[in-house]
Each structure stands twice: as structure tokens, then as C-alpha cells.
């Protein structure tokens, strides 16, 4: 059997205006970090680059219930604090503080790069978009765990946006984000595997998420990339 490769051309960028401020929005979380439920509740991910499937989590899942795919090479930080790439607890804290309206009842994880874009685009990403639509999410926060994931994350964001839900993609490499052309992107100067910042620094994670939502609200045209002044140094 001849192996086929597919080239992704990022031309069309869907756009759904974000109508409600963060404080009135139901925010859904999607990561490319390869997160799954432990204790056999989820089948672990396969090989990175060959597995385009996703895992679905009730948003009440506890951090202790979550693990990172063993093939996720950037998992060092996330194994210390899952919130560095899957900030579910931080979103709940923002909801409790009234900064966002609510956290969507389910969250999602993909694994890494978009080596299989056809199955991602024809099956898994639309499935997530449909589920988000059904649960009434107004905004999806898509966290790209690694610069190599920016394209996959952008494809998911574009599909969700196409379904009528606004998205914002958080990444760590400006050039990759500009090339991937998600509807709204925010970049920070953090290392691969920890887009939210240092493990255990909940205050910084919350601050970053608030700034991210403020920045995304102001982005008025598809494909814009906002750069936030967060860095790994001096924390």
C-alpha cells in the first residue's frame, strides 16, 4: 500500500464573532497535550503523529485522575502540574471568581502533531465541535502543548469556529502560530510543554488566562496573533 502524505494549506480562516464578554461566556477547554484519564477509564493514546483521536473529560475531573501520554516528550512539566497545558482547575477558579461565566461541562484532549490531518478534519475535530455546540459553549480555549502541535491545534480551532463557537489558541511560537492561522491566537514566551508557565504557579496561570481572554476579546479579524508579555524568566 502506498503511503499518502497530505499538505495543509492554511487559506480560509473561519470567524465567529465573540459576542459575550468572558464574564458571560461558557468556556470549553481543549488541549493537544495527550491528557487522558487514569485507572483504565480512557484508552491511552497511541503513537504521536499517528493518533488523531481525542479523549473527553467531565470538567469536574480531579488532577489526580489525569495523566499524560507516555509518548508526549514534553510531558516533564505537565507531570508536575497538569495545569501547565490543561488548565481545567484554573478555569474553575476563574469561574468561581466571576471572571468567566462558566466552564463547559466537558473538556477535550488531542495528542500532538497533525500527521493525520484527514482523520482529524473529517472525524475527530468535527465531533468535538459538535459536542461543544450541544453543551452551549461560547468560547473554546485551545492550548497547544508544543510548537509542533500548533498546526493541529489551529485545525481544531478552525473547525470549532466553523461550528459557530469562538476560539482562542494559546501557543509558544509566534512564527508557527502565524503560519497555522487559527482564528485568534495568543503567544507567550514559555517553553514547549508549559504554555501556561511554571508548574505550581497557580497565580501566574490565572493571570495569564485573564490577560489571554482580555487580549482575545480585542482581536477583531481572523488570523491575528497577540503577544503577551509573559516569560519563563524571573518567576
Amino acid at each position, binding site marked *: 500500500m502506498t503511503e499518502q502524505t497530505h499538505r495543509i494549506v492554511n487559506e480560509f480562516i473561519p470567524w465567529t*464573532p465573540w459576542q459575550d464578554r468572558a464574564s458571560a461566556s461558557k468556556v470549553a477547554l481543549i488541549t493537544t497535550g495527550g491528557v487522558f484519564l487514569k485507572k483504565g477509564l480512557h484508552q491511552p493514546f497511541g503513537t504521536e503523529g499517528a493518533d488523531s483521536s481525542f479523549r473527553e473529560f467531565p470538567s469536574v475531573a480531579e488532577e489526580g485522575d489525569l495523566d499524560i501520554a507516555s509518548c508526549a516528550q514534553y510531558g516533564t512539566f505537565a507531570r508536575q502540574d497538569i495545569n501547565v497545558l490543561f488548565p481545567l482547575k484554573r478555569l474553575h477558579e476563574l469561574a468561581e471568581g466571576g471572571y468567566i461565566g462558566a466552564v463547559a461541562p466537558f473538556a477535550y484532549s488531542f495528542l500532538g502533531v497533525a500527521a493525520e490531518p484527514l482523520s482529524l478534519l473529517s472525524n475527530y475535530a468535527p465531533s468535538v465541535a459538535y459536542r461543544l455546540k450541544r453543551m452551549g459553549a461560547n468560547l473554546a480555549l485551545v492550548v497547544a502543548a508544543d510548537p509542533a502541535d500548533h498546526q493541529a491545534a489551529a485545525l481544531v480551532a478552525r473547525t470549532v469556529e466553523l461550528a459557530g463557537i469562538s476560539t482562542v489558541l494559546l501557543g509558544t511560537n509566534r512564527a508557527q502560530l502565524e503560519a497555522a492561522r487559527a482564528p485568534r491566537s495568543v503567544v507567550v514566551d514559555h517553553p514547549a510543554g508549559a504554555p501556561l508557565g511554571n508548574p505550581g504557579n497557580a497565580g501566574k496561570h490565572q493571570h495569564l488566562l485573564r*490577560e489571554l481572554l*482580555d*487580549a482575545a*476579546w*480585542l*482581536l*477583531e479579524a481572523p488570523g*491575528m*496573533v*497577540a*503577544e*503577551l*508579555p509573559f516569560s519563563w524568566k524571573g518567576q
Partner: protein
Amino acid sequence: MDESTRWVEVFRTGEDFHMEFMRGLLTTNGIPVVVERQGFKDMPIILGVAAVGQLILKVPPDREREARELLEAPVETEDDA
């Protein structure tokens, strides 16, 4: 969405290095930025490819004044010291 809820232009240039300098000046001072490329297209020339167009630097409306002060501040050189 009205103008008060959009990113505001504070600088534009056709030069990448100039934009990188100004962008770095703002981000190192804690100001979020967006860099937009407007009217860019590649122009084949004898020695390679050059891009023509405008790079536009934008900031959130509530940080505009602070950004302009930083961008318009005189640059100190060693000769001034």
C-alpha cells in the same frame, strides 16, 4: 464592536528589524502587542526575494498612552552618557 474595544495602532514600518525592535521594547515593558502584516507580497529580485508591505504594531486601547510614551522616548546612546 466599536473602536474602543479594538487593538490600536501605535507604530508602522516596512522593515522587519525595526518592527522587532519596537515590539521587543513594548513586550519587555509588559505591554501586549499584535503585529499585523498589511499588503505584503513577495517581489522576486536579482539577489533573492524581498517582501514589500507594511508591518503594523497594535496594543490594547488601555495601554496606548503607555506604549506611545515608550516608542517616542528619546534613545540614549553611549555618546549621551
